[in-house]
């Protein structure tokens, strides 16, 4: 087990116009579980494959346990990789799939059997040991795939979308399993996923990526509550955060031009707004309260959509081009055409620069600051965006 540090790691595939991974900085602590989260094609697998040594590095550094491994053969890096497509050895039984690495390293037959049986017990695949991969279901293949990555006791365990090919029930089951395994074995683990729930549920910290660039690297709650930019804000959460462009009217109100939307600028965000003429406002659906009585600072509107989901009711209010969704406790009170008033929770407001999409920050909010004063600066590589 060891820490994993990526420094300005970059990969440009030959004949590609842009970098698949662009100056990625990431520090994973010893024993930590992090998730690489991002949409399909954002460079997650490429990052993992570079760490494993299956792709060459265009520039930057990969350090495992403080040792530069850029030019090390994959087998000497001490990594275990659970492949996105399983990549099991088709002609070999599960037992021999698991033993491949141990045999290649010349371990004795007794020790090999012991370790294979042990990992098979951990992942509950004992009864599969004498089957060939073709006879396994996808859930079983995924378990074998992970067992093969873990049986060597890697310094860094890399899991590439281990849950994405499974059906919903199996996914939740294996997710719990992975969490338990990590608590038990404490491998430094990087899991790749495009599923935000998976990342939130599993990881100590989440690295959100988009188009090869790191967007934010922080704990699940920080990433969720204080997204570093518009992309992260929009990517996490279901239903997604309401993000819309507003103009600043006489330094006192945020308005959507030509509509009734007018939100008084609260003291808490006064400083952030400053002298801006325009900004983007972000608020999660459950940060908006809907009522039928006018209160101070409430925004008037008319209901256009109502979705009753059983455990919550979603109410949509339209202002010109903008549809604002709110999520409220179940009620039968609202129906389309009803005039209502929206109350925005002050602490749930997120402000973004309308040009760059960056979160507006006054510096007092430490959530998206680099860990510049942390003692273990090396490990907690600066968050870049």
């Amino acid at each position, binding site marked *: 087990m060891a820490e994993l540090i990526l420094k300005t790691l970059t990969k440009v595939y030959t004949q590609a116009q842009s970098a698949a991974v662009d100056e990625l900085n990431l520090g994973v602590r010893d024993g930590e579980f992090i998730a690489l989260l991002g949409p399909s094609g954002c460079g997650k697998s490429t990052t993992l494959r570079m760490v494993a040594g299956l792709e060459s590095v265009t520039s930057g550094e990969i350090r495992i346990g403080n040792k530069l491994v850029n030019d090390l053969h994959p087998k000497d890096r001490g990594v275990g990789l659970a492949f996105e497509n399983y990549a099991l050895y088709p*002609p*070999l039984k599960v037992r021999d799939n698991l033993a*491949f690495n141990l045999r290649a*390293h010349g371990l004795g037959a007794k020790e090999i059997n012991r370790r294979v049986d042990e990992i098979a017990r951990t992942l509950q695949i004992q009864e599969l040991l004498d089957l060939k991969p073709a006879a396994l279901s996808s859930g079983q293949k995924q378990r074998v795939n992970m067992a093969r990555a873990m049986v060597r006791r890697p310094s860094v365990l890399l899991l590439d979308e281990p849950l994405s090919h499974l059906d919903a029930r199996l996914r939740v089951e294996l997710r719990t399993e992975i969490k338990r395994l990590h608590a038990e074995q404490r491998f430094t683990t990087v899991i790749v996923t495009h599923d935000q729930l998976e990342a939130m549920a599993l990881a100590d910290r989440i690295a959100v990526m988009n188009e090869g660039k790191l967007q934010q690297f922080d704990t699940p709650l920080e990433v969720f509550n204080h997204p570093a930019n518009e992309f992260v804000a929009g990517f996490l959460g279901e239903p997604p955060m309401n993000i819309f462009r507003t103009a600043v009217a006489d330094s006192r109100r945020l308005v959507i031009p030509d509509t009734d939307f007018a939100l008084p600028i609260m003291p808490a965000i006064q400083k952030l707004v400053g002298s801006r003429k325009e900004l983007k406002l972000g608020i999660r659906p459950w940060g908006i309260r809907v009522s039928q009585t006018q209160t101070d600072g409430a925004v008037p509107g008319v209901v256009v959509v109502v979705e009753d989901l059983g455990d919550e009711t979603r109410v949509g209010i339209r202002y010109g081009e903008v549809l604002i969704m709110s999520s409220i406790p179940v009620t039968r009170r609202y129906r389309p055409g009803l005039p209502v008033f929206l109350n925005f929770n002050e602490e749930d407001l997120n402000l973004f620069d309308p040009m760059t999409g960056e979160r507006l920050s006054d510096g007092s909010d430490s959530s998206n600051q680099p860990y510049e004063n942390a003692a273990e600066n090396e490990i907690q590589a600066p968050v870049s965006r």
Partner: protein
Amino acid sequence: MSTTLSSPQTQPSALPPEGSASKESSAHARRRRFRPYLVLAPALILTIGIFIPFIAAICLSFTDYSLNSSDVSFIGFDNYLSMLQSSDFWHSLGITIEYAFLCTTVEMLLGVGVALLLNDENIVARFLRIVLIFPLMIAPVIGTLIWKLITNPSVGILVGPMRMIGLGDFKWAASPDSAMFSLVVVDAWVYTPFVIILVLAGLRSLPKSPYEAALIDGGSPWFVFKNLTLPMLAPVLLITLVFRLMLSLQEFSIIFALTEGGPGDATMSLSLQAYNRAFPFYGLAEAIPMMLFLWALVYLVSFILIGFWRRAQQRAAGVA
């Protein structure tokens, strides 16, 4: 020879749906009814074309038919018995098996080795992969004559180099001691590219991802070859082996062009033995039992190997 392989498997299946026939013209219906048989006709003709000579040959083998006499009488199994009692036959059988075994072994080892080397993305490999097809376009007889030319004691280009390594008086096909060796060299020279091409095609169709897994798992190239490549490649190897065994057991043209079975009868394989009996010595009826024996041998070997191939295929797919 290979009647069993070409027996038609297709079944007529173009029966018109019920009820529609009455509405159609009778000419159309008739055409429809005959269509399946028309489609089968080429296979039928081919089968008959192979069967008739085959049956005729078997019939002839029970007579004393000869190319230079006109009266033919039935003599039962005499031709077969005399074949089994003739030492020439057993000698030729030994030569045939030796030849097939040596050629196949050399070509498979060499072919797999070279294919592994060429299964790489560099300029040399890419160039050689294209060039490899050319030797296969040359008829084996021509290939043999080319080889004869380059080992010719007075004009051959190989004589100089042979002299340099102290083998200036190496006799090649002219000496009974080295005739078989020369044959194997020529056969390998002619047919190894065939093995290389088949094995290369097999190698290039293997899945890539297990090799990435093996890269991380580690292990020497030999370890990976033995545990991963060999089992996955086994079906292709076995099919290649079947082809080479079948053809080298029956090989005629190379031996005929290089040694004519000599010196003496040092390289007199069954094909040559039968040919010699049938034509220079007019004993066609005597030659047929040998050809039938050879056919049975080839059939048996192929049958066994194809059984192995089926199992290897299942194993490679991970089914068995």
